[in-house]
């Protein structure tokens, strides 16, 4: 192995370890890692810039602008209160409704954004009913990761895979991943109800207080709401048609975001741009450059060759290895750097003669997205919800979450294994 490759591996492992330790913010660490790769001459600046996937970044920025502006209208609170009223204030039905809304919203919005919208409403409804919010929050964490698996834009691993593989369109993700995500949600919801049944009790009087709520008061700006819904609908239609229109998904999302700012006026722009999670965007930038060091020095090619040797080039064995490895790794590590490393490896396996890569891509997507449910540190949404919950006096500890999360994650990967095998490998 060349000296440059050894340096690249060393820098990558040190940076990865510091990211996992969470002693320093992951964005700072990833950016420093990327800068070190360039500064040591392992990858040139031009090559580093070429490795930064603008499609992933543009898609995230565009959607964050649209959701940030739409949240100002009170729409998401309105939907949650309507659901609580339809559930007649019954905690079990509200848990099911909020989980389903979270999963559906996560399919089309970023998971972190979805839980940031759902958590305040959950505190509001559970306080009114005087029930423990933790079961609702744990169910929402898991629902957001399952729902996010269903589409190209639902979860960062899918955004990265969709961006790296030109042949996979928005519709391909829905056709291939939404059915299994729906099955997993259908299996998980009764389990949530069973596990949390003792906490989901309230009085008839408190249920009536939910029915008295006037949801219309929550819609603060109807004109803005109409504009947001129009743009959101156009953007989602744009995702469905992006391949036919020969547009990248980032172009669609950014067009939607800036069309919305054009229609809402300059006063909304400053506020909307503050809603973009720039720390996440720069985390991606640093990671892309960090991984480029491994690609440019041939480390990824060697890993791919090793994987082919282990699996004997058999697609079934490779799919199962990727699915389970991704799931276990994503339960304990950040799935974004993991997927950033796996994508070039799978591409390299294609270059080395593995002809049917499709099951490998779906295995990576399912493993990385669903694996995040395994522990509290498995996905950004988990950390955000537990952080907010702890701050409000309802701590969700690593162990408390894992008792529910890990077995349910394993169940979801078993379902995914059967799905992948029956659909692509028989």
């Amino acid at each position, binding site marked *: 192995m060349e000296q440059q490759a050894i340096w690249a591996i060393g820098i990558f492992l040190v940076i990865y370890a510091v990211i996992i330790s969470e002693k320093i913010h992951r964005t700072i660490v990833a950016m420093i890692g990327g800068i070190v790769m360039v500064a040591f001459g392992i990858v040139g600046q031009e090559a580093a810039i070429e490795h930064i996937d603008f499609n992933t970044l543009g898609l995230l920025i565009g959607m964050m602008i649209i959701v940030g502006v739409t949240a100002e209208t009170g729409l998401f609170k309105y939907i949650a209160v309507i659901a609580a009223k339809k559930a007649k204030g019954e905690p079990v039905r509200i848990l099911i409704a909020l989980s389903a809304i979270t999963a559906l919203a996560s399919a089309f919005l970023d998971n972190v954004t979805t839980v940031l919208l759902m958590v305040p409403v959950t505190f*509001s409804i559970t306080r009114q009913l005087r029930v423990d919010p933790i079961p609702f929050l744990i169910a929402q964490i898991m629902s957001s990761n399952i729902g996010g698996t269903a589409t190209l834009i639902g979860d960062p691993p899918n955004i990265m895979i969709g961006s790296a593989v030109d042949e996979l369109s928005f519709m391909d993700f829905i056709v291939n991943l939404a059915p299994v995500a729906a099955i997993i949600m259908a299996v998980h919801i009764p389990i949530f109800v069973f596990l949390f049944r003792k906490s989901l009790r309230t009085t008839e009087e408190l249920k009536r207080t939910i029915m008295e709520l006037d949801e219309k*008061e929550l819609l603060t700006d109807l004109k803005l709401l109409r504009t947001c819904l129009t743009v959101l609908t156009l953007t989602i239609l744009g995702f469905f048609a992006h391949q036919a229109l020969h547009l990248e998904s980032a172009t669609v999302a950014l067009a939607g975001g800036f069309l919305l700012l054009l229609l809402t006026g300059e006063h909304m722009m400053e506020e909307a741009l503050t809603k973009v999670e720039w720390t996440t965007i720069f985390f991606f930038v640093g990671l892309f450059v960090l991984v480029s060091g491994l690609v440019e020095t041939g480390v990824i090619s060697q890993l791919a060759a090793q994987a082919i040797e282990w699996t004997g080039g058999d697609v079934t064995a490779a799919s199962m290895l990727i699915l389970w490895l991704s799931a276990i790794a994503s339960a304990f590590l950040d799935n974004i750097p993991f997927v950033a490393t796996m994508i070039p490896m799978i591409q390299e396996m294609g270059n080395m003669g593995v002809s049917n890569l499709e099951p490998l891509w779906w295995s990576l997507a399912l493993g990385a997205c669903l694996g995040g449910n395994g522990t509290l540190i498995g996905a950004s949404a988990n950390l955000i919800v537990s952080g907010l919950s702890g701050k409000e*006096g309802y701590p969700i500890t690593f162990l408390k979450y894992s008792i529910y999360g890990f077995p349910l994650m394993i169940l979801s990967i078993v379902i995914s294994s059967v799905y992948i095998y029956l659909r692509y490998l028989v």
Partner: protein
Amino acid sequence: MLSYCFNEQVIQITESSDENDVQFLIKVLQKDPYVEKMQKVRRFFDDNRVYTDVLFYALADHTYKVIVRIDFYADFILELMKHRLLESVEWKSGQ
């Protein structure tokens, strides 16, 4: 302890408390401009990133049930005062 006065032609406020919370039932009698002021108070607490400090529940006829965490009681009263939903606020000593 904070004591407050309000114009009964404009707003009605009743207050009850338990171990952790103070519950307000606020009925706005004059829609303009006081409903909008009430929404500004709500928006202030919705936007401040503490989710359980002050929780608003809109009911029919411009009536609001507000659950206020005890440690945010003064903040809530002062926000009502800031938007002139209260006429006066004072610290009552010895209580």
